[in-house]
């Protein structure tokens, strides 16, 4: 391989270095994703008002462009006179944070469990995979309901619930990857050289299973945004007055006939975030998985 690279004409090398043509849809997704991320990061700076501040004189103002609207509230206000732009920004921030921590929790737990199952094998493997099977055969909403009924709903509990949602998926993926890798010559070589199990796991196995894990992480992230918003929508997520996108939709629901804008903004944001992350995840999957390139 090294020889051919050295003797290859410089043109070929240049072609190899050239970036692939930019896909406009992908570029749009990245741009929207970055904009949403920045908006969430700088929500405290961007929001014109305190998201929980109630102004009873400015209740149910419609967004700019409608009758009775007020320029100080570009997206209007809700039934308690809270500024919807500020609430959307803070809601987006909290929703993204919850989904990110939830996905990370699931990934960490799944990675540890999956690595243990894959590397140890035998009875431990059988037990872990059995538990995964049970987890995967249950409608997750039921598990979430049970946990929330018992532990109450707080940010910590919610992160835990979201983490529980996909750990088994991660564990299975990582176990399968580890099993595939375990017999490869370089792992054997490391073992022959006397490397410890921990060292083999962290230095030799982990770096080689990163790409499918990234793909799964991205796809699960968008699912978690939907799950969190569904739980918050049902009133089982973060408790009021704190805004998440789902709870804004859930609480605005009662005012829909007269003030549909309360629901419209956060609902659109949920769709936008989920769609963007999903497109990115799909692109990553196609990019990493050569078999799918022709489709």
């Amino acid at each position, binding site marked *: 391989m090294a020889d051919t690279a050295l003797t290859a004409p410089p043109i070929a090398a240049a072609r190899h270095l050239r970036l692939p043509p930019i896909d406009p849809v992908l570029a749009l997704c990245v741009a929207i994703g970055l904009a949403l991320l920045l908006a969430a990061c700088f929500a405290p700076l961007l929001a014109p008002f305190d998201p929980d501040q109630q102004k009873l004189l400015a209740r149910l103002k419609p967004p700019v462009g409608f009758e009775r609207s007020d320029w100080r509230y570009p997206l209007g206000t809700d039934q308690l006179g809270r500024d919807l732009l500020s609430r959307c920004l803070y809601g987006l921030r909290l929703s993204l944070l919850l989904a990110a921590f939830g996905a990370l929790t699931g990934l960490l737990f799944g990675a540890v469990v999956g690595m243990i199952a894959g590397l140890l094998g035998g009875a431990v493997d059988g037990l872990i995979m059995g538990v995964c099977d*049970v987890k995967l*055969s249950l409608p997750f*909403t039921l598990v979430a*309901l049970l946990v929330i009924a018992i532990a109450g709903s707080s940010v910590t509990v919610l992160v835990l619930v979201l983490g529980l949602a996909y750990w088994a998926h991660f564990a299975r993926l990582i176990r399968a990857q580890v099993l595939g890798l375990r017999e490869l010559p370089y792992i054997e070589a490391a073992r022959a050289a006397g490397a410890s199990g921990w060292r083999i796991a962290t230095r030799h196995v982990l770096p080689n299973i990163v790409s499918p894990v990234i793909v799964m992480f991205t796809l699960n992230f968008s699912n978690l945004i939907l799950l969190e918003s569904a739980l918050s929508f049902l009133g089982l997520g973060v408790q009021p007055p704190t805004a998440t996108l789902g709870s804004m939709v859930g609480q605005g629901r009662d005012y829909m006939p007269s003030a549909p804008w309360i629901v419209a903004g956060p*609902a659109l944001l949920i769709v936008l975030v989920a769609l963007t992350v999903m497109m990115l995840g799909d692109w990553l999957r196609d990019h990493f998985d050569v078999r799918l390139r022709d489709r």
Partner: protein
Amino acid sequence: MLEFIAGRLLRMTVTLWVIVTAVFLATRATGNPIDFLMPEGLDAAGRRDMIAYFGLDRPLVEQYVLFWKALAQGEFGLGLMERRAVTTIFAERVTHSLSLLLATLAVTVAIGVPLGIMTAIRRKTFIGNAVLLAAFLGYAVPNFVLAILLLLVFSFTLGWLPSTGSATILHYLMPVAALSAFFVASLVRYTRNSMLDVLSQDYMRTARAKGLSERVVILKHGLKNALIPVITVLGLQVTTLVSGAVVIETVFAWHGVGDLLVGATLRRDYPVLQFGVLVVACTVVTINVMLDLLYSEIDPRVRLAKG
């Protein structure tokens, strides 16, 4: 074959046992549920009496034995809110949920499979791409947002459809649409992928070479083979469908099990929640095993690979 069935049934039994035990432990994990149940200002003696009444002061092992005994006798206690047997409360709800789920399943298959075939055959055409884009949207729009959008348009603006209840066929339109969108979208994608795999197989070329009409080639040789993985996916989606129904029932005040369970969670009605989780989880697990056995009947490769 017998060995395969026995293996599956054994695994199902273990799964069910794990579910029952997990539910038992979970509902007793955080001290006493009594504190949520009793009216405020209950004195210490009253609290002690109630704990004794529910058997919550006994050792965990004994409670576990009692729990199983009650299960075996079909005694699941009274709902805390309604003071009626949870089994009765459930019986009233179950048909509503089942009819919603079956309607959704029917709509999903009736729309998803043909669209999936269409997008596989008409690849890279305008209509094919439009359907795929719509499927992508169906994936990303959460069911409750779709439900609310439908309510806004068809109930509050146009006034064509009733917003809550389940009395007539008109009541079904919006909940079924909101619930099935995601599943139609995923079925379109799976059917398409599966169909694309099959279309490039040698036996398809053979069928065409024999001079069969395109219709027969696609439907008889193509679809029949493409449907096997699709059925598998549909089986896996049962859990997602139940999860989705929980949300949709709440939005449309559908008098079903999902609506009941969300209410029970919000009010910490443990007996109802415990029974609900048990029944729904066990049903789903059983359905999955049945489907598993069904595929092995349809497709012998499954049996050979796993058994």
